[in-house]
């Protein structure tokens, strides 16, 4: 079943068309990757799906129903959670507090929220750091905290915005493993990523965006050998060689 | 009919003076991105400086500008340097740090009550200044001479500041800092000394306003409170950071205040002004001028 469908989505900022007539569909249980050079429109597309911007044209469907123009908090309640490229922890509060904010999305009871939060923290190997202030975490832990908060809202679809940026190679590998387990637990994952190695290893399918348009889509192997993709990333000379 | 015309003219004159009062507030906001809650107190200090300058030297009130402007400039310069700068350094990442509002409120309380201690609550007015109570008669209309001079000064001051910001090297550096602090510092502009200078200019403008008011208005320690909320309203009306907007906003308030009482109890006009202010805050927080800043 198609969990997320993006139909001919367009987003215009003043005179700039950041995303134009973009189509995309993600099956339930998939890990889907979106890549593209800096400034290609990845984040804009992502933010349109996540309800930050209303699209200028086209439609977004979540499990068959249109969600375009919905506010982020409503999307979260429907089962669509996201992380931020620039992590936004509630810095003055503990790790546990941060995750409880997420788990309160599905419960009104503090005890239940705490139980859920501790579960998620254990899953992400943050259970030894529950009392540390979020502002004092390392970047790798902050990225995990960001995922933990999103998971605590019990999503069906998880949007991950560059969760590997700034991580060291070993940390990237750990993150890949975590995302695989998340999928195994039945959550569909939509990743934007810059680190090619990771996204190639992780995704079932990948779409490539360049100047707001889709220039390729397919399995990692298909995308990596696509002429348009090589040109977009490395310049024409590489494509010839 | 004649009375309404007379009231309108007097409203425009007084309104221009209001605009002059608000000028410093808008200049400081334009660069530091902060609403200086102590602005009314700076006006009060300006009025006292003007008052004493005239009292002690016997100068014509307007000649006192020679003293008032530099004194107030230095006062503002060091106030920013000593009291407000530490907050900016602590909150570098924040574009419009709310803590600065709190600190300037502290400055307001200190200045008002210090002047209460030093000058006592006594109301003071310049005894026989050459402008006192003078009126021009045009037909059957009476126009206040000190307000006329005040309005002229307001327009000239606004024009001078505008010219300075547009045409001089320092003015361009101030505008650059207002638009992008970091990019400006990559051009060799020292952000904090620009802040000091801007605060100095804003305070000096409050001093000029003080000079224009003193000939027809009493000076007392809490006189700033009468004007500061009016100044906030004016700058929001005209567009925060806009120099032309400050004068225009002042004129609007001036007209409402002087023509309004023809139709209703004078105190109701005050309520109308607040209502207008709130409408602007909600509907058009960038003020009358569409662009965010006109410089």
């Amino acid at each position, binding site marked *: 079943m198609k969990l997320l469908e993006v139909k001919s989505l367009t987003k215009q900022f003043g005179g700039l068309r950041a995303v134009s007539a973009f189509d995309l569909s993600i099956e339930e249980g998939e890990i889907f990757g979106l890549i593209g050079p800096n400034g290609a429109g990845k984040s804009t597309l992502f933010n349109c799906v996540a309800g930050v911007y209303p699209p200028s044209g086209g439609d977004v469907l979540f499990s068959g129903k249109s969600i375009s123009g919905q506010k982020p908090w409503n999307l979260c309640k429907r089962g669509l959670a996201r992380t931020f490229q620039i992590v936004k922890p509630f810095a003055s509060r503990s790790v546990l507090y941060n995750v409880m904010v997420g788990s309160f999305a599905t419960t009104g009871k503090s005890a239940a929220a705490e139980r859920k939060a501790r579960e998620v923290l254990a899953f992400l190997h943050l259970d030894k750091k529950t009392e540390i202030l979020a502002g004092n975490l390392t970047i790798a832990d902050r990225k995990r905290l960001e995922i933990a908060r999103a998971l605590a809202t019990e999503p069906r679809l998880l949007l991950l915005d560059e969760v590997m940026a700034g991580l060291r190679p070993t940390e990237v590998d750990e993150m890949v493993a975590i995302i695989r387990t998340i999928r195994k637990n039945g959550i569909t994952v939509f990743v934007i990523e810059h680190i090619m*190695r990771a996204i190639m290893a992780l995704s079932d399918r990948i779409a490539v965006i360049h100047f707001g348009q889709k220039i390729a889509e397919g399995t990692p192997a298909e995308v990596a050998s696509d002429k348009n993709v090589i040109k977009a990333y*490395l310049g024409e*000379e590489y494509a010839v060689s | 009919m004649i009375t309404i015309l007379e009231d309108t003219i007097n409203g425009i004159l007084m309104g221009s003076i209001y605009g002059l009062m608000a000028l410093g507030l808008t200049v400081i906001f334009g660069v530091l991105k902060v609403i200086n809650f102590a602005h009314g107190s700076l006006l009060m200090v300006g009025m006292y400086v003007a008052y004493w300058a005239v009292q002690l030297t016997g100068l014509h009130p307007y000649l006192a500008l020679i003293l008032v402007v530099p004194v107030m400039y230095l006062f503002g310069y060091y106030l920013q340097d000593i009291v407000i700068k530490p907050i900016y350094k602590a909150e570098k990442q924040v574009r419009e740090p709310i803590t600065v509002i709190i600190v300037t409120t502290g400055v307001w309380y200190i200045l008002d009550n210090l002047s209460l201690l030093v000058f006592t609550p006594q109301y003071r007015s310049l005894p026989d200044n050459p402008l006192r109570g003078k009126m021009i008669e045009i037909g059957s209309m009476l126009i206040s001479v000190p307000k006329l001079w005040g309005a002229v000064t307001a327009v000239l001051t606004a024009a001078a500041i505008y010219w300075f910001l547009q045409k001089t090297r320092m003015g361009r550096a101030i505008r650059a800092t207002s638009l992008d602090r970091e990019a400006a510092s*990559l051009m060799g502009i020292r952000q904090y000394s620009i802040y000091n200078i801007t605060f100095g200019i804003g305070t000096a403008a409050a001093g000029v306003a003080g000079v224009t008011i003193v000939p027809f208005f009493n000076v007392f320690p809490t006189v700033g409170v009468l004007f500061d909320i009016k100044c906030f309203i004016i700058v929001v009306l005209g567009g925060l950071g806009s120099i032309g907007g400050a004068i225009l906003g002042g004129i609007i308030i001036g007209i409402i205040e002087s023509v309004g009482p023809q139709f209703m109890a004078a105190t109701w006009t005050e309520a109308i002004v607040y209502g207008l202010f709130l409408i602007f805050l909600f509907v058009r927080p960038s003020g009358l001028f569409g662009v965010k800043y006109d410089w």
Partner: protein
Amino acid sequence: MPFLEVKEIDVYYGDMQVIFGLSLNVEEGEVVSIIGGNGAGKSTLLRTISGLMSSKRGEILFEGAPISRSEPADIVERGIIQVPEGRRLFTLMSIKDNLAVGAYSRRAEADAEKTLKEVYALMPRLQERENQVAITLSGGEQQMVAIGRGIMAKPKLLMLDEPSLGLAPILIKDIFETVRKIADQGTTVLLVEQDVMHSLRLSDRGYVLEHGRIVMEGPAKQLLEDPHVKTAYLGL
């Protein structure tokens, strides 16, 4: 003695380390590229050299003098000029005023008129539109103004942070040609880029930056041939 020498610096963003024991050199008259993906620490490195951020450890020397504790304005006075990522023009000022602010520093001010002529000779389009407000320009034109503003400051060392960012391929070519001309006129250039191909072609030497560390360095030609560069940027 190298022109610019960065010695073993550690840089933190808040309490998060972004640069780890990084060293590099730039010789006078060279064009040097630093390439690396998003979040590798490229911008942080330039911001540290410019004095917008400070290093917790290590040292930065320019013409032999330590500058790691200097204010940005003092570093500008020494002749290190950065053209920041995303242009960062003074949006509501005219092109002419943007360029004038470029010559704010004392060492640039005296020659401002002469430099302005040079900038206009290099990028004639800017002269045609000198009274236009910066915010109304296209991305490519804005980048030209940003570079022009940098030249107005009379740089000894010009640092460019991703000048190709968000520009169409045809404009990217223009921008790199302009950088080429600037370098040919004798200005030392330190270029930070994701556009590996264009930037390395233009450069004498290059460094590859990953996760806050230099992982490779060498003559630009050699890096262009290197399989790791391909792997790092395409995941092939």
